């Protein structure tokens, strides 16, 4: 089990491959070094033997004999050979006991085995043979046992140096494999918990931030998002349930009371009328909620056409001016120039209407609502500002959520969906919608993409284009 796991582990398999590679590389390097060294040694021995043989060719018999004697007494290791043979090859003096089977040409030759007094010594040697003036043959040689011994020591050095390296690599590999396995097991366990529904669980991330950590961190960020969305969804669910149940409960109570205690037809009628109001409120909530969904999931871009936000603002202003006046709120329009965007005019009118309606709703008597369409940095937009209580900084994002109600809702009515619908419409268009402090009051800004010009624009901006073009 553990063995299988080890072999399956990527870390351990990498270590194994690494050990093989190290072995192969080291073997190649050592072999190369050995070949270089042995070739050089053989060359050196061959040169010396040929040189000495050349010298001996002309030596007197006495000198030669003395040298052979000296050699026989001093070469205890039996590595060097000097031998004198008669023309038939029988040994006269020195060793080896028989003339090695080489050509007598004064050049170095490699022999596979060195003839000995008994059996031949099974070792390689290099020999040089020359024919002296008296017809005798002088052979000089050296055993290659030393050099061959070098090969063995190189091989054993290789083994000695490699073995611990490989063991070390495998141990480290196993260590990392185990650690990785343990981490994966932790991650696996965490994912298991999350799948079971514990969205507070996060994947473990260590300080070192390696590749696994980076993936875990990204997954964690994703989980944060999902958890937030789920929470939002839950809140929306609760809010919808509340917004539907409350009017349904009231309607039910009214009908029940009307049926049980309605003394007259008029009583019953009054109770029914009240119940109807509350049912309408529930229906309005569903309708508005579906509206947000429809806008959010709508694929209406196909119908996008150039829309002048200034003229939309003018229409919305005309529509809401009487309402503002009836509330004692001053309302001002500032839409002096063409402000073109690509969009759905009906939806943009709805978004701007919601902003204006919202502003009028929250502005106290004597206050001011200002509706402005303009072009900033080449982007057309609409600003709706009021002198109401404003939006608390912590609510400035949440205010666009579905069904969100801040404290500012307070006495004013409405199901809190106007801003959500406006936000959904802005999102569908790829526009930004934000709220700022108007000191005092709130300032909502809907800002579109680049102001449309050129081919898609209508009359007025084509003129502008024509003026700009030659510059």
């Amino acid at each position, binding site marked *: 089990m553990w063995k299988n796991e080890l072999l399956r582990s990527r870390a351990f398999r990498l270590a194994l491959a690494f050990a093989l590679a190290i072995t192969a590389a080291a073997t190649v390097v050592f072999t190369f070094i050995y070949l270089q060294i042995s070739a050089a040694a053989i060359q050196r021995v061959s040169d010396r033997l040929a040189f000495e043989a050349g010298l001996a060719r002309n030596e007197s018999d006495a000198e030669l004999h003395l040298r052979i004697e000296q050699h026989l007494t001093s070469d205890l290791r039996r590595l060097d050979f000097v031998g004198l043979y008669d023309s038939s090859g029988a040994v006269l003096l020195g060793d080896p006991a028989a003339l090695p089977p080489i050509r007598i040409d004064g050049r170095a030759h490699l022999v596979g085995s060195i003839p000995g007094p008994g059996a031949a010594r099974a070792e390689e040697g290099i020999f040089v043979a020359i024919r002296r003036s008296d017809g005798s043959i002088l052979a000089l040689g050296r055993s290659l046992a030393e050099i061959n011994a070098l090969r063995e020591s190189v091989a054993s050095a290789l083994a000695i140096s490699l073995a611990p390296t490989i063991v070390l690599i495998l141990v480290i590999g196993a260590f990392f494999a185990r650690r990785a396995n343990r981490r994966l097991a932790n991650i696996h366990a965490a994912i298991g918990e999350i799948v079971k529904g514990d969205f507070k669980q996060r994947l473990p991330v260590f300080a070192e931030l390696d590749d696994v950590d980076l993936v875990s961190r990204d997954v964690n960020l994703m989980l944060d998002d999902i958890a937030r969305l789920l929470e939002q969804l839950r809140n929306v669910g609760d809010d919808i349930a509340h917004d539907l149940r409350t009017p349904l409960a009231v309607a039910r109570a009214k009908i029940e009371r009307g049926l049980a205690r309605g003394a007259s037809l008029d009583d019953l009628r009054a109770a029914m009328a009240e119940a*109807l109001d509350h049912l309408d409120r529930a229906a309005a909530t569903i309708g508005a909620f579906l509206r947000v969904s*429809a806008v959010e999931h709508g694929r209406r871009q196909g119908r996008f056409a150039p829309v002048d936000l200034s003229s939309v603002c003018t229409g919305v202003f005309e529509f809401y001016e*009487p*309402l503002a006046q*009836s509330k004692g709120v001053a309302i001002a329009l500032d839409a002096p120039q063409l402000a073109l965007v690509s969009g759905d005019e*009906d939806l943009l009118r*709805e978004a701007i209407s919601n902003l204006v309606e919202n502003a009028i709703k929250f502005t106290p008597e004597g206050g001011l609502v200002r509706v402005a369409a303009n072009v900033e940095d080449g982007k057309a937009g609409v600003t709706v500002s009021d002198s109401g209580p404003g939006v608390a900084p912590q609510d400035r994002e949440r205010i666009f959520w579905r069904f969100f109600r801040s404290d500012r809702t307070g006495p004013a009515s*409405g199901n809190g969906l106007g801003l959500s619908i406006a936000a959904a419409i802005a999102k569908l268009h790829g526009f930004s919608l934000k709220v700022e402090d108007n000191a005092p009051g709130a300032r909502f800004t809907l800002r579109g993409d680049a102001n449309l010009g050129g081919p898609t624009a209508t009359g007025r901006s084509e003129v502008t284009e024509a003026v700009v073009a030659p510059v």
Partner: protein
Amino acid sequence: MPQTASPGVKPAILVIEDERGLAEEIRYELQAEGYPVELAETRAEGLRAARAGAAAVLVVDRMLHGEDGLSILTTLREEGNATPILVISALSSVDDRIRGLKAGGDDYLAKPFELRELTARVEALSRRVADARATRLRAGPLEMDLVERAVWRGERRIDLLPREFKLLEYFMRRPNRIVTRAMLLEDVWNYRFLPQTNVVDVHIGNLRRKIDAGGEPRLIVNVRAAGFKLNVEE
């Protein structure tokens, strides 16, 4: 309950709706307003009844037992049947509305709706033919010159803002008929959604103040749970 039933025989209405409870309520309400009503539950039944040609207005549910009610519209229109059709649907998105109107519907109403709203729209469809080319409108004491853009009540000239003029014109083209807030929003202001405030009532209030001078009887009256009506003698 205000009595809006007018004298004389009203045209027949065919209601194609598979939800029994709702169909019965619609029949009850329309009959109370004086319309003969025929009910159909399926697409085939509905088509047969519509082809018989007795109905002046069709009320068609978009979804009938899993069948697409809109195919009734397209079929009838292909056959050259031009009977006005009101589409009712639980689908309320703008896209669905556009699809309904494209298929040959003349008006579109999302469920749940007020029965008075339905009645008002059926009435509007059944009496749709008005002289659109007229340049002068008259309704009771009111007179409107569409070319000069001037309005009088009796001898008194009334100064109206353009938006008030448009609103009054809408009422004068539909005297004594219920006009709902949704109809005003859609037809006068091109609004495809219902504002959450009483903005329509404010517009009506402003218009009323101008056309009803001190002591004069109120011409535009509220109809409870439905909307408004320009109340004049015909």
